[in-house]
């Protein structure tokens, strides 16, 4: 394919810092001549400690010290494979470096994440994402050049315009730093992606954990690090909790002959919204999660359902009142099903909702 986007890191053993330095110093020489956009894209991916190596080893091309160079296929033609460099940023987080186009990413890494149990995108919740933008503006005083924002009908966010409809906008202007909040206030549009210009280059942040650095220099990596510092702590706590949600077994008895079921359930706690039937309908209207045996009762509101994650084929139960949505592991569960479901609640029901294991909430 013409216009192939690619950079090649020379053999060697790299720590994270050495890897970044190699990118900065090697810069132009690393990119293939066909590369039109010499940017660095970083996709953040949630995983389980250690398990990721098992999942990705079949695609490993070179082990470069702490950095793994992998190739993911997009077709049966190996020459179309897409290169990624993986930095195991924290036990539950992988950063995939590449200069792939959206087209390449969607057919390689995104598809791989969707098809692989044990990998999930690092979604940043709406409130956290807004705070992240504010924090970034505060630290680096960039020009917000462009942003993408959305509102879904039924969002509890009050708007000056009134009118409960879905909206989306792709906005470009040099006063984006103001309009982004004006549009939120007026039309209830929440930012999903934002591109900001510093004198050293542009930085793009997306709420699905994708970051783009349009130039490669120390300032860009410093800015990226500040993003990770802001996001990572809280998000990794949520990931760890989601990984504890499971149905397990315990041995009991004089000879340990009795096997009995034990479980850790997950719990989504609504802080601002209160669940009701119409909201349940909005949650149920979904491509990824399917709901059966769903019974919602008004009055003292309650909702029970069985949920199938079509993507990861995991199954969990829901038992909810108007404030707590309890997630009960049933079969084949994997943490990213819970994380992605939680993210949907953040997006559609309550942007302040929290996630934890049930024991941590009421135990």
């Amino acid at each position, binding site marked *: 394919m013409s216009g192939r986007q690619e950079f090649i890191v020379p053999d060697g053993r790299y720590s994270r810092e050495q890897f970044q330095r190699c990118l900065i110093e090697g810069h132009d020489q690393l990119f293939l001549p066909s590369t039109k956009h010499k940017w660095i894209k970083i996709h953040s991916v949630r995983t389980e400690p250690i398990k990721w190596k098992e999942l990705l080893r079949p695609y490993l091309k070179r082990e470069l010290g702490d950095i793994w160079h992998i190739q993911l296929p997009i077709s049966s033609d190996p020459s179309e494979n897409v290169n990624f460099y993986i930095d195991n940023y924290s036990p539950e987080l992988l950063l995939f470096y590449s200069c792939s186009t959206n087209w390449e990413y969607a057919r390689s890494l995104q598809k791989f994440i969707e098809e692989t149990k044990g990998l999930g995108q690092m979604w940043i919740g709406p409130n956290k994402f807004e705070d992240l933008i504010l924090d970034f503006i505060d630290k680096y005083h960039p020009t917000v050049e462009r942003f993408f924002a959305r509102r879904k009908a039924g969002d509890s966010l009050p708007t000056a315009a009134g009118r409960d409809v879905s909206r989306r906008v792709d906005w470009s202007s040099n006063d984006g730093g103001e309009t982004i909040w004006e549009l939120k206030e007026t039309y209830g549009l929440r930012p999903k992606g934002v591109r900001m210009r510093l004198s050293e280059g542009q930085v793009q942040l997306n709420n699905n954990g994708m970051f783009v650095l349009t130039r490669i220099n120390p300032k860009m990596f410093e800015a990226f690090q500040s993003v990770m510092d802001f996001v990572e702590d809280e998000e990794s706590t949520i990931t760890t909790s989601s990984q504890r949600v499971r149905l397990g077994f315990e041995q009991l008895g004089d000879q340990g002959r009795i096997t009995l079921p034990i479980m850790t359930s997950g719990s989504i706690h609504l802080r601002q919204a209160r669940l009701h039937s119409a909201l349940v309908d909005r949650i149920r209207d979904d491509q990824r999660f399917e709901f059966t045996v769903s019974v919602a009762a008004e009055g003292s509101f309650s909702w029970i359902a069985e949920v199938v994650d079509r993507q990861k084929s995991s199954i969990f139960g829901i*038992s909810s009142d108007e404030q707590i949505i309890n997630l009960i592991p049933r079969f084949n569960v994997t943490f990213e099903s819970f994380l992605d479901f939680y993210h949907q609640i953040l997006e559609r029901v309550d942007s302040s909702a929290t996630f934890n294991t049930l*024991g941590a909430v*009421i135990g």
Partner: protein
Amino acid sequence: MDDKAFLAELASKELQAEYSVRLREVNRQATKEFKENRPVLQEQLESGFNEEATHDRILNTCIYPFVETGLPLARLGYRFIRAAPLLELGIKNIDFLIYRREGSRPIVIFGEAKGGVTNPSRTLTEFQDRRQIIEDHMDYIKTNYLDTRTDPIQEYVFAVKSSMATRMRDAVLESPIRLILWQVDYMHHKLQLVQAPSTEPDRHLMTHSDNQLTSNLAVPSGLTSFENTFAFFPQSHILAKLVNSLQIVDRDGANNILRPYKLNQYVGAQLSYLNETQRRAEVEQILDEAQSIHFAERIPESPDYLVASRSRSRPGLEAELKLRWTKSKLDKIWTDKVEEKRLSLQEEMRAKKREQPDLFSFE
């Protein structure tokens, strides 16, 4: 006896003609009756299913705090061991078994969940009978469920909906039977001990021997619990088992496929306390029922089953399943009715034949 054989038995032409005419009338009559009663019958089927669903919710609420290890009761060492103890011996007994092995003396709790009680004193007598059966099988229980030689303290719990609690408590106090009463408010996710009035001399006989368990269950606001710990139990309604089996149905092109190996795993996760033979019997029961109501049929030369609906959504499959189940049960009621009438007509005709003088009576 089938009609052909019966006509031969009747021998006489007049009787044969009469039988044929009356048989048509019987069929006509049965069809008419069935059509008139159909809505009532359908309602009875549905309410039977709903009653058992309520029963499962009560049972689930009773055991949740003993399965979820993050909650206080599980931390006291209590564990849910199994539902439907003694069922494998063909004994339909109580609903659940909870056990605490640690402590100076082990404690075993036998529990019964009751959705509706119309006659409390009869229910109590029945419970007393079940208690006797358990005591008769204590050695079996110790060996097979608890894996212990120690004689545990035995406690008996009767769990009812909150709306029934006071009535049930009064019935217990009026009777010579002493047991521990729990009340379940599954809409509010609460489980609570029903205490006797402080003036009651037998008050202590209605609490647990472990004060910590009593005090946890006696908190005025009730203990938090949830009504769908497991999707189903061995004693659940067959339709509930079928509906939940939809969770593991795979899509293969335009078809929906039910795979026994997957069903086996799913049933295993929900009924992990059953042994291999019992689990297989559960799977067989589900597959047999799915076939007999014409919801699934075996794919030739394959272990798998083709679902008789191409619905692309699980809620769609659920609706189709319920429809087929109801139709099949109604058909069965109708054919049973016709058969019953036909057989009684045959009896009547036989009597008539006996009364008829035959050739020899003229001698």
